[in-house]
Structures are given as C-alpha cells and as structure tokens.
C-alpha cells in the first residue's frame, strides 16, 4: 500500500515537471512531436529507475558509513553521467535502430535535473531500497506523462494562429501552466 502511495504521489500529485519544476529543459525541447516525447520519456524513466537504485546503494553503503555525505553532489552526478554513458553504449550495441531514433537526447539525460533531484529527494525522504526504486519509476512515468500531454497539445497548435511574440516557448509555457493547474486538482489525493 505504501509503495502504491509513493508511486501515485510521484506520478500525479507531485508530478516532477508540472509541480516540482524538474526537467523543464527537455520538457520544452523534446515536446514538439508525440513520438520523440515518448522515446525521451521512456529513456529518462529507465535511467531514473537505475539511478535511484545505484545512488541508494552509494549513499547508504559508501557515503554514510565513511562519513562522506558532503560528497553527495559529486558522487551522484558522476554516477548518473557514467550510467547514461553505459545505457548509450548498451543501446548502441543491442538495438542500433532505437539508438538512432534517440540521437542527441540520450547524452542530454545527464543534465536533466529531474534525475539528480530524484536521487537527492530519495535520500532526504530516507526511503528504503524498494521505495527508492518505486519513487524513481513514478517520477519517470510522471515525466513521460507530462511530456506526452504537452507534445500532443503542441502538435495541434501547428494550425493555430498564435501572436508572433508568443510563438514557440511562450505559448508552450502558458499551456504548461494550464496543465499544471489541471494537475493541482490531484492535490490532497495523497496526504
């Protein structure tokens, strides 16, 4: 039950993008088409789940016992960067088609602050190992959901007559604001 609450909370109530403002850059950059949004979302979810597991192990088996929590930022960002590299190499070998489709998005996952944010929040919340992984899964799926929603709306916008200064990022932010308003309806679902 508790795990379900964590999943739901990360997915809807405290959606990483729309409520916590994490991962805004890819949210704007990769939300022009639903297909690329889905690919980016799933790749990010995968990295998030692996990252939450590995950073949990590092925090509780290396940093805490040796009294090194002040190295947290440095250790986590290095782990995330090397993991993204690993995922990239793995995809390159096993499914070149998918690798091609992802293109530049893959290395960019490193600088997605949602991943580092997730790792730090999981430590601050003192989650257990399983809880951390579920938290990562919920966060990743929430990111994917927000990305696809925005991409779907932006695809429709191609035919809309938008004032020139608002075109591009301006209108995207206002749509994101309305989406965020809709998501605030989930507040109170999980206390």
């Amino acid at each position, binding site marked *: 039950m508790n795990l379900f609450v964590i999943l739901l909370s990360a997915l809807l109530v405290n959606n990483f993008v729309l409520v916590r403002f994490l991962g*805004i850059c890819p949210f704007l950059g990769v939300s022009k088409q639903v297909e690329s949004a889905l690919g980016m979302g799933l790749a990010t979810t995968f990295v998030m789940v692996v990252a939450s597991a590995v950073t949990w192990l590092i925090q509780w088996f290396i940093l805490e016992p040796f009294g090194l929590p002040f190295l947290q930022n440095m250790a986590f960002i290095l782990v995330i960067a090397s993991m993204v590299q690993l995922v990239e190499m793995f995809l390159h070998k096993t499914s070149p088609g998918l690798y091609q489709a992802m293109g530049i998005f893959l290395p960019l996952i490193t600088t997605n*602050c949602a991943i580092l944010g997730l790792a730090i929040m999981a430590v601050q919340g003192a989650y257990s190992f399983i809880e951390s992984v579920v938290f990562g899964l919920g966060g990743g799926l929430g990111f994917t959901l927000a990305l696809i929603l925005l991409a779907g709306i932006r695809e429709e916008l191609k035919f809309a007559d938008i004032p*020139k200064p608002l075109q591009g*990022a301006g209108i995207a*932010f206002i749509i994101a604001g309305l989406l965020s308003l809709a998501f*605030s309806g989930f507040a109170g679902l999980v206390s």
Partner: protein
Amino acid sequence: MALGKDFIRGLWEENPTFRIMIGLCPTLAVTTSAINGLSMGLATSFVLVCSSALISLVKRLIPDKVRIPSYIIIIATFVTIVDLYMHAYLPGLHQVLGLFIPLIVVNCIVLGRAEAFASKKPVLASALDGLGMGLGFTWALTLLGLIREIFGAGSAFGFQFLKEGTTTLGIMSLPPGAFITLGILLAVMNMIAARQKAS
C-alpha cells in the same frame, strides 16, 4: 573594451533566461518572491564566476576526452561550497531554496559557459563572462519573483503594501503562476527584441 563586451553580453543580448532559455528549472521553482529569486541568482553567479575562472585556468591540463566530467567535478565542488555555506550561515534561505541549491550542478548555464567560453578564453575574460551571465540570470529571476510576489502576496521584496486580508491572486505563488508568468514575460522580451532589431 573587449573585456567589457564579455561582461555585457549576458545581461541582455545573450541573456540565459529570456534569450537563450536555459537553466529554466530554478527560474520557475524558486521565484515565489523577489528575495528568493535574487538569492538563487547570486548563488548561481558565484558558482559561474568561480568555475569559469578555474576551468579557464586549468584548461590546458585537462585531456580533451574527459573534459566534460572534469568540468562537472569542478562545478560540483563550488556548488558544495555554496550549499554548505548557506546551510551554516543562512539556514532560513537554505530551507526555502532547498533542493535547487545542489541542482546548480546540472544548471545548463554553468556547463554551457564552461564548454562554450571558459575552455577557450583567458582567465579574466572567462570570469567576466561568468559574472555577466550570472547577473543576467539574477535580474531575470528577480523580475519574475517580483511580479509573482506583487500579484500573489501583495508585497515587494518582503515589504507588504496591501492591507492584511486583501484578496490576492494566490495562483501566482503556485506552480501554474510560474509557468504562465514566464510565458508572458518571454513574449514581452521577444517584442522588445523585435523592436530593437527593427530600429
């Protein structure tokens, strides 16, 4: 003169928030008030100036293949300094900015300037470039925070100018207000830039 140009660039022409649109997560998240925006901007500026200067200083020692991880380590060092300093001396502010202090590490502005500028230019120019970009980021955050604070809480820089109990636009302090305000501000900045170009 050339040094002045390195400094000025970040303030408007290549303003990270309004013109290039990077580093947007903290821009949206911490700007519930003008003071918060200002503090976040200054913390980021400190990291930008120090990391740009240091990276420029050691650029010849770093092998090309591992330059990005090396830059990230240098940036993470300064971020940890800011984090620990604020935790010790400004605990209230540290509480408010919270997660977004360690997240300066992955702020694309810092790594972006390291890669695009500091890895090629001399130390003084890099530090000035970092300062310009940092201050450009700071004024953008302060403006956004000020607008949201005025409409959301009826105060400016903590100074309450509306009577206690007046109905304010509470939505401006909440996440949707951040998105919508930034969207409108971007449109305004685009209009100003277009007008500048025309004249």
